[in-house]
């Protein structure tokens, strides 16, 4: 029967990736969930599941710690703030860029898109370290900024190892993830709609805010999700470019697993981060689908 052979074929095709995700994603995630309810081991790792008295050692201590010790919650809020700023700045920079690419002659578009993703061809850490040189105290940028500040009698400021450095690099790294979905959306816009709006009395500003921008919202949501979620969990950039106050949730998680060796608490932080990111992604997908629906079927 055709139906049955189709079913078999479906499993053969989707089996390997499913198996891969099960082994390398679902099972580790499950281990992390279980670990979050256990006690930390004396020398790192996890304490035995059954203690010497023969009692099952399962508790909510690590969750309680996250909720009661406000410092962690504050780091979480700070991370969300950095991610939100990164998303907004990326949006402000990417929108004109994506518009420019979408409106340029067809033969140049592929080249311009290639330039946008060109940074991916070199290693992520090398690119972050490059910013150390660009923002370093003896580099031209710092000299120019501090020279200008000296003229108006302001003390020199360090550019490196600051919130500024972290934010600049966060924007730099994530910008392509905002440009690409925005471009994919803007490229499909119908010029006739803008002509119609103009014919009906709308000036350039009104055409943008009433037609172009609302129709680009699915792209904005997709780009925002692609920037906000990875920016929320990042640890390498604040590690390398940040100052002592730029510890983000990603650094905290790394610390718990590698330095403090408190696996249960590290697991709790990871779970909170994952749930927050999933909730946001779900929201973006839901809003995006609602917006895209009326556009796709038009």
């Amino acid at each position, binding site marked *: 029967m055709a139906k049955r052979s189709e079913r078999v074929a479906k499993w053969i095709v989707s089996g390997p990736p499913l198996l891969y995700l099960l082994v390398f994603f679902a099972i580790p995630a499950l281990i992390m969930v279980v670990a979050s309810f256990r006690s930390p081991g004396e020398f790192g790792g996890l304490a035995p599941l059954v203690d010497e008295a023969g009692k099952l050692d399962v508790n909510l201590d690590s969750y309680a710690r996250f909720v009661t010790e406000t410092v962690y919650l504050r780091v979480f809020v700070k991370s969300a703030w950095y991610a939100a700023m990164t998303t907004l700045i990326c949006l402000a920079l990417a929108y004109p860029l994506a518009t420019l690419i979408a409106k340029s002659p067809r033969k140049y578009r592929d080249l311009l898109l290639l330039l946008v993703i060109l940074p991916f061809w070199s290693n992520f850490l090398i690119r972050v370290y490059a910013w150390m040189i660009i923002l370093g105290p003896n580099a031209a940028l710092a000299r120019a900024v501090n020279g200008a500040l000296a003229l108006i009698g302001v003390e020199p400021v360090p550019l490196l190892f600051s919130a500024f450095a972290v934010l600049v690099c966060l924007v730099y790294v994530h910008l392509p993830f905002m440009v690409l979905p925005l471009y994919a959306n803007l490229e499909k816009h*119908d010029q*006739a*709609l803008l*002509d*119609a*709006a*103009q*014919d*009906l*009395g*709308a*000036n350039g500003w*009104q055409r943008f805010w*009433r*037609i172009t921008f*609302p*129709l680009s919202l699915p792209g904005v949501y997709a780009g925002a999700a692609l920037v906000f979620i990875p920016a929320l969990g990042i640890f390498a950039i604040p590690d390398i470019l940040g100052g002592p106050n730029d510890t983000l949730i990603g650094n905290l998680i790394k610390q718990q697993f590698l330095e403090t060796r408190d696996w249960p608490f590290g697991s709790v932080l990871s779970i909170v981060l994952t749930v927050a990111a999933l909730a946001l992604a779900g929201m973006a997908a839901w809003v995006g689908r609602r*917006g895209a629906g*009326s*556009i796709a*079927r*038009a």
Partner: protein
Amino acid sequence: MALLDIDHVTRRFGDFAAVDDVTLAVEPGEFFTLLGPSGCGKTTLLRMIAGFDLPDGGRILLNGEDLAGRPPEARPVRTVFQNYALFPHMTVEGNVAFPLQMARIPASERPARIAAALEDVRLIGFEKRYPHELSGGQKQRVAIARALVTHPTMLLLDEPLAALDAKLREELQIELINLQKEVGIAFVYVTHDQTEALALSHRIAVMNAGRVEQLDEPSKIYGFPRTKFVADFIGQCNLFSGPVKSQDDGVVTVDVTGIGAVRVATQAPVAAGSAGTIALRPEKIRIAAGAPIDSPDNHFRGTVADLLYMGDVTVYRVETPGGSRIEALLANSQSGRAKFFEVGDAVEMSWAVDAGHFIAG
């Protein structure tokens, strides 16, 4: 004073003149059609009236005021686009409200205006629908309501019915005629469909290669085409060309290769020896199997080479002994019609001198 004056307007794209020194006037309340094949310049002319394109020469005046320098959003004309161009993220109501918002009409006045516009196009009850929930005809009606809601001076329609199927098109044609009568706004209508132009318009400008070939009422365009192009483009037409032999008493005789001497009445004086063309509609030809019939002015024999049965009428292509083909059309309901002719049948064709129309050249 005319409502719209197109005054020696030219638009060039490189060496190509899309619109070539066109002058015409549209009167208030008129249903005016620009008719022509694709590439004849009719859409370019419409876009220049709307302001999306600018003339390289000449002026466009609306109510005597030169529109040069006024962008589309500042012109009191509205366009209905071929593919509707409805805003997909707005409801029907939102689409129709848009021009009112742009014109800063107070919010308190808008609902009544929207309702009136939707009533004009018979779309009451569809306010909350999105464009993707409408049929093609309904979308076109929304586009028209949206264009009319601000009471523009003039409505420009760019092949608005081209995307619809034949039956719906006919229905909307009748609605357009009634709507135009009702609102009294001048319509400038662009189409390549000659039956549509004949059915809708008060006047038609037939365009070819950037120029206006003839500007007239539909019946004049059909009955008295001034050029070979117009005769050929508007409906089916036999064109008999050849040197003029003589003109006696208002009847010109043209020597047509493969047919012979064809006679046609004309008022204008025609010089013997000059080139002439007789335009003759297929439905003006009497076709019969028997002996010569009542119109002795023009009478030719031939055999049916092929035929096209179209239900209400049949089109016969008759080959003359000289090798030319004449197209004749016969209504199948014609009384006394005894039989259909078959391919190979010998037939007699005749028509009166005033059945055809003489075109110099």
